[in-house]
């Protein structure tokens, strides 16, 4: 009897916490498709707000994807070889480098954004292009890629596989392509999902780095929260959810698969 009471109490509490997290999302989704949120759902269901958001903010959404995939490209090209180098090299220098590239996870985005602005703000062309935002996203997401790949290296004994391929006559570059990258794939995929998800949702840095011509999806969101009617802001949030939730689900599935191994 006492056990059942404790169980019921904990379940109730957990449901309450879940409601706290889920109810606002449901509110937001319903507001995004309601004709008039103030009057409630009986005022009718509509896609007009979603269409309006698309007309207003398609550019922002497109730029966000451009930046997310450019960030992914850079973190792949720079981060995957670096993860291999850091793992194989080991030693103090590697630890220091790893520590430094992980710092952007500890330092608030606002500080990094200010630093970038104060250093490169004067280079007009660079400052006004989306590449400026890209640098911030790369700095912020790089540790996720590097660590995700390094985690795989630590678990598959990549060093011996590398030596095995070398003993068979493969040059360093051939080994990297034939053995290192294929075996790092789970980490590369997990890291990629993480990088794209974080880049699509990044606001702290981006708000500081953007210009009127380089607005991203979350910047547009903040705009709409400040200046648009609730239905439009909700519809915009709905579009964001539709983009980000599949990525989150994929990431979660990946994490579970990794745990089972």
């Amino acid at each position, binding site marked *: 009897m006492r056990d059942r009471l404790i*169980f019921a109490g*904990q379940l109730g*509490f*957990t*449901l309450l*916490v*879940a409601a*706290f*997290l*889920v*109810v*606002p*999302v449901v*509110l937001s989704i319903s507001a995004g498709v309601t004709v008039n949120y*103030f009057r409630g759902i009986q005022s009718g269901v509509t896609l007009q707000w979603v269409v309006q958001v698309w007309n207003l903010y398609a550019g922002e959404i497109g730029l966000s994807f451009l930046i997310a995939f450019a960030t992914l490209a850079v973190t792949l*090209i720079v981060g995957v*070889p*670096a993860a*291999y*180098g850091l793992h*194989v*090299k080991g030693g103090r220098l590697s630890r220091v480098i790893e520590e*430094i*590239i992980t*710092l952007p*996870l*500890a*330092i*608030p*985005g*606002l*500080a*990094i954004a*200010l*630093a*970038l602005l*104060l*250093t490169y703000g004067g280079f007009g062309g660079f400052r006004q292009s989306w590449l400026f935002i890209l*640098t911030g996203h*790369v*700095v*912020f997401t790089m*540790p996720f890629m*590097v*660590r995700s790949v390094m985690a795989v290296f630590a678990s598959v004994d990549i060093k011996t596989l590398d030596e095995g391929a*070398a003993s068979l006559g493969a040059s*360093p*570059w051939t080994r*990297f392509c034939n053995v290192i990258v294929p075996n790092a794939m789970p980490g590369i995929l997990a890291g990629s999902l993480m990088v794209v*998800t974080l880049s699509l*949702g*990044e*606001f*702290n840095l981006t*708000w500081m780095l953007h210009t009127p011509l380089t607005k991203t999806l979350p910047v547009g*969101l903040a705009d709409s*929260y400040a200046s648009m009617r*609730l239905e439009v802001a909700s519809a915009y949030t709905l579009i964001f959810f539709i983009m*980000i939730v599949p990525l*989150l689900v994929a990431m979660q599935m990946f994490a579970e698969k990794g745990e089972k191994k």
Partner: protein
Amino acid sequence: MVPRRGQGHHHFMSHRNFIWICLLPLVVVTAAFFLLPMAQLLAVGAGGSRGVSAYLAIITEPRYRATLINTVVLAAATTIATLVIATIAGLFLQRHRFPGRAVLIAMLTFPLAFPGVVVGFLIILLAGRQGLIGAITAAVTGEKVVFAYSIFGLFLGYLYFSIPRVILTVMAAVQKLDIGLEEAARSLGASPWAVQRDVVLPALGPAFVASGAIAFATAMGAFGTAFTLATNIDVLPMLIYTEFTLAANFAISAALSIGLGVIAWAILALARSMSGGAVAAAG
């Protein structure tokens, strides 16, 4: 054909050089877009009218100090509340199997990567002028309760942001607990409460330290949520933002953001040395 004998070897890159080439792009990118800017930030912070003492202004200037205290108290409250909530829910979810459990876990963890701005908006929908709580209280008591833009609204926002990742950490730690320890304690006559108090919670200590530090550091530096909700509340990120964009006070905003960065980094470094695990804040 690869040369059989050694003469050809100097045509090939040595492994050592290859590793350096692998590391080079990362070193260049990090130096150019992180280390150099951070050094510049440090220099600008010291280059204002206050000089190096700008770095002390976060403590000496009463207005800044009040903001700092505000932010720390808010972050600490968020951390404690999140830990309590996540421990109860995480222990429950990891220790019981029931229909719908997977759905419940998904509901508790899917907001993991919502940006702060979106979280802020969700709090507005909950407790804003057209919010659910306002509607309910108006219907029940006749008085509309609105607190999204107060410090309590911000607290709820940070809570929303922190709960998913702390629950995940707690659940992972509970999974690793040796059930034998609990059974041993029970065999020695410990009541369920005593088992929780003497065995389970102490074993979860490192997970608490790690996830608590992440929650704290994240709450200290959270900008997106504050930007949406904290138009009237003094928290450090908003102070830095207004000093920079509105007052164009570059030196002070640089010094304050260095101070904020150092606090966040120090909390995480301390937690890491205590818990031995990898600890990092989230945007």
